[in-house]
C-alpha cells in the first residue's frame, strides 16, 4: 500500500515525538529503535524507512530546533546589533530551542558534526553544520551597526569558520553540563566566546591590511 506524502510527514513527526519522549525518559543509549517503533505503533523495519540510525533521529530533532531558532532569531533582529551580538543571539536562541533535548542531542551533534575531518559523517550532521555556518558567514558579512560608514566589512575564511565551529562546540559542551539556572553561565561563556571570535577576525583583518598597506619592498 502506498502512503501519501502527508501521511508520511505525519508518521515522521510522530516517530520524532515518541523518540524525544523516550530519550528524555530513558536516555539516548538505553532507548532502542525497537522501543521507538513500538511506541509509535510501527514495525522496526518501517522505522528504518524514515531514519537510518538512532543518531539520525536525534539530528532530525536538532534540525527542527535550529530551524525554529533561526526563524525566531530573524524575527527578533533589530538591525542595530554588532557582529558579536548577532552571533551571540543566533547561537543563544539555538541553544534555548535545543534545551528540550539537552542530555543527548549535544553528544550526537558533537560527534556527528565535529570539526575533525576524520570523525565527520556526511548526511544530516554535515548539513546542520553547513547550514549553521552559512548563517554565521552571512552575519559576519553584515555591516557592524556601530562601525563608521565605509568601515571594512569582515570576511571570514574557511579557517575562521572552523574556529567558530570549534568555539560553538566548546560552548555546547559546557552547556551540556551547565547546572546554573536556565544555563545562565553558558550565556556568559557564549558572550565571551563570540567576542573573542570577532576580535580574532578583526585582528587578522587588521594585520592583513597593515601588510597590504606597508611599503612595497625594493
Amino acid at each position, binding site marked *: 500500500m502506498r502512503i501519501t506524502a502527508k501521511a508520511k510527514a505525519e508518521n515522521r513527526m510522530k516517530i520524532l515525538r515518541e523518540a524525544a519522549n523516550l530519550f528524555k525518559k530513558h536516555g539516548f543509549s538505553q532507548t532502542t529503535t525497537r522501543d521507538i517503533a513500538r511506541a509509535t505503533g510501527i514495525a522496526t523495519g518501517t522505522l528504518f524507512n524514515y531514519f537510518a540510525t538512532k543518531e539520525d533521529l536525534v539530528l532530525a530533532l536538532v534540525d527542527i530546533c535550529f530551524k525554529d531558532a533561526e526563524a525566531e532569531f530573524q524575527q527578533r533582529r533589530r538591525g542595530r*546589533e554588532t557582529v558579536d*551580538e548577532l552571533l551571540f543571539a543566533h547561537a*543563544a*536562541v539555538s541553544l534555548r530551542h535545543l534545551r528540550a533535548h539537552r542530555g543527548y542531542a549535544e553528544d550526537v551533534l558533537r560527534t556527528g558534526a565535529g570539526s575533525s575531518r576524520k570523525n565527520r559523517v556526511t548526511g544530516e550532521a554535515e548539513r546542520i553544520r553547513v547550514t549553521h555556518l552559512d548563517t554565521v558567514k552571512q552575519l559576519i558579512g553584515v555591516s557592524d551597526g556601530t562601525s563608521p560608514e565605509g568601515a571594512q566589512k569582515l570576511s571570514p575564511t574557511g579557517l575562521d569558520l572552523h574556529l567558530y565551529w570549534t568555539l560553538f562546540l566548546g560552548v555546547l559542551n559546557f552547556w551540556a553540563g551547565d547546572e546554573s539556572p536556565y544555563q*545562565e*553561565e553558558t550565556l*556568559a561563556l557564549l*558572550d565571551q566566546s563570540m567576542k573573542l571570535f570577532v576580535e580574532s577576525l578583526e585582528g587578522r583583518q587588521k594585520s592583513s591590511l597593515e601588510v597590504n598597506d606597508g611599503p612595497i619592498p625594493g
Partner: protein
Amino acid sequence: MDRSLADLLDALPNEISDTAREKAEKSLRSLVKDLEHKPVPAGQLRRAWIFGSVQAKIAAAYMANWIRTGLSESEEKERRLSETRLKAALELLGGMGYLRGAMMKVGQLFANYPDIVPEEFASIFGYFHFEAPPMHFSLLRELVRGQLGADPEDLFDDFETEAFAAASFGQVHRARIKGSGEKVAVKIQYPGIAHTIRDDLRNMKSLLLPLRLRGDWDNLSAQYDEILGMVEKETDYEQEAENLRVARSAFGADEGILVPEVYSDLSTKRVLTMEFVEGIHLKTFLASNPSQEIRNAYGEKIWLSSVRLSSQKRMIYADPHPGNYFFRPDGVLGLVDLGCCRYLSDEEVSYCDAMERASIEPAETSRENMILAVDPRPGQKVAEDQLDLVKQFSDWCWEPIHHPGCFDFSDAHYFQRGVDIIREVVRRGYLRSRPVNNWQQRSFFGLRAMLYRLGAHIDAGSIYRMETTAAAQGLGEGDR
C-alpha cells in the same frame, strides 16, 4: 624562581628600585613559604597570581605599598601610598572587563580600609558605576526570558535597550509597566556573576593574607567570611526587594524620603523591577551650586534615613555612597540600591546599646565595652593601645551625635581624623573585630563621606535622639 613569584614581581610598579625589588623578592619568598604552612589554599593563591588578572595587579600594588612602607623614609610614605592607591585604582579601572560588577564591589569593599583605598577613589568607583559599557541587548533578552519567561519587550512597554546605569552586579534599564504606563527601573544581573564573585573573593582572601600577617587570622577569616556572605547576599535581588519593602515602610509620605516600590511579579533573584526614582546624583546636584539651606535639608534626610533604618528596622544600610542617592527638584531624597543591608540580631542591638553608653563614659570605665568591640568571647586579652584606638574610633563615630547643636560635616579635619584612626589600626595590624563592625564601619564612613561632600551642617544629635526615643517607644513613622 617560583613562576608565580616572578609574575608578581613583574607586576610591581616600575619605579621600584632594583635594591627594593631584591628585598621584596626575599620578603615575598618568605611570605610564600610561610603561606604554605598556613591553613589557606596556597595553590589557589598561586593560581590567582598566575591568573595575571586584576587581582594580581591589585595584589602587586598592595605589595608594593607594603614593601615601600617598610623601606622608605617616613616623609615619603604619604606620597608613595598615594601613588600606589592611584595605581591600584587605575589598574582596577583598566582590568575590569566582564567582571566589572564583581570587581566594582570588591573596590567598594576595600573602601572599608581607607589605608588601602581611600575616600578620594570613591569618585573613580562612582564613575564606574555609571559609565561602564553595558551588556548588549541580546544577552539581556535571554537573561530576562530565563528569569521571567518572556522577552523584555513583551513584558514591558518602552523597554530601553540601552542601560542607563550600572548597578550591583548588573545594569539598569528604563521601561514602563504594561497598561498603567508607570515608569520603572529594571535591574538585571550579569549571568553567572554570583558564582564568579564567590571564586574571586576566595582568591582575594588569600591575596589579602600577606597584609594581615600580624593579625589574628581566625578572627580576620571570620570577618572576611561575613563580608563574603554580605556580597553574596547582594547578588540575591529577592533579598534586596525585601530590604526595599522594609525600608519603604519606615518613611511617611510627607517625610521627603522615597524608597522605590518593588514590582514583585516582575522580580526574581536576578531581575528586580522597581519604581523609577527621578532625580540627579550628588555630583550634578553640587554642580548646580545649591544653597547651604538646601544642602542641609538633604543632609538631614540622608542622616535621618540611616538612623531611622537602624533604630526602627534594625537595618544597617552599609552602602551609603553617592550613586545610591537621588536628589529630586522638589526636595525629595530618593534612596535606591538597598542590596547591601544587614539586620542586627538581639545580641548585636545590646552590643550597640552598650557602645552608645560607653561613648559618654570616660576611657577608664568604658574599657570593658571596648574589649567587647574587639572580641565578644569572655576573658579575651586585648592590647591597651588597641583599646585606645577602639575608643578613639568610637569617640569619632559619636562626635556628631554628642556635639551640641549643628555639626559641620564639611570639616575635612573631622573626616581625616576617622581615616587616620583606621589607618593606624591597619598599620598596627589590629584587625581583630566583631564581624558586625565591618558593616557599621562601612556605613559610618560612607554616611560621613556623603555628608562631607554635601557640605552639610545638621543637628545630627537631635535627629538621633528623637529617632532612637521613638523607636524605643515602638512608634512607627505614622505615630510621630
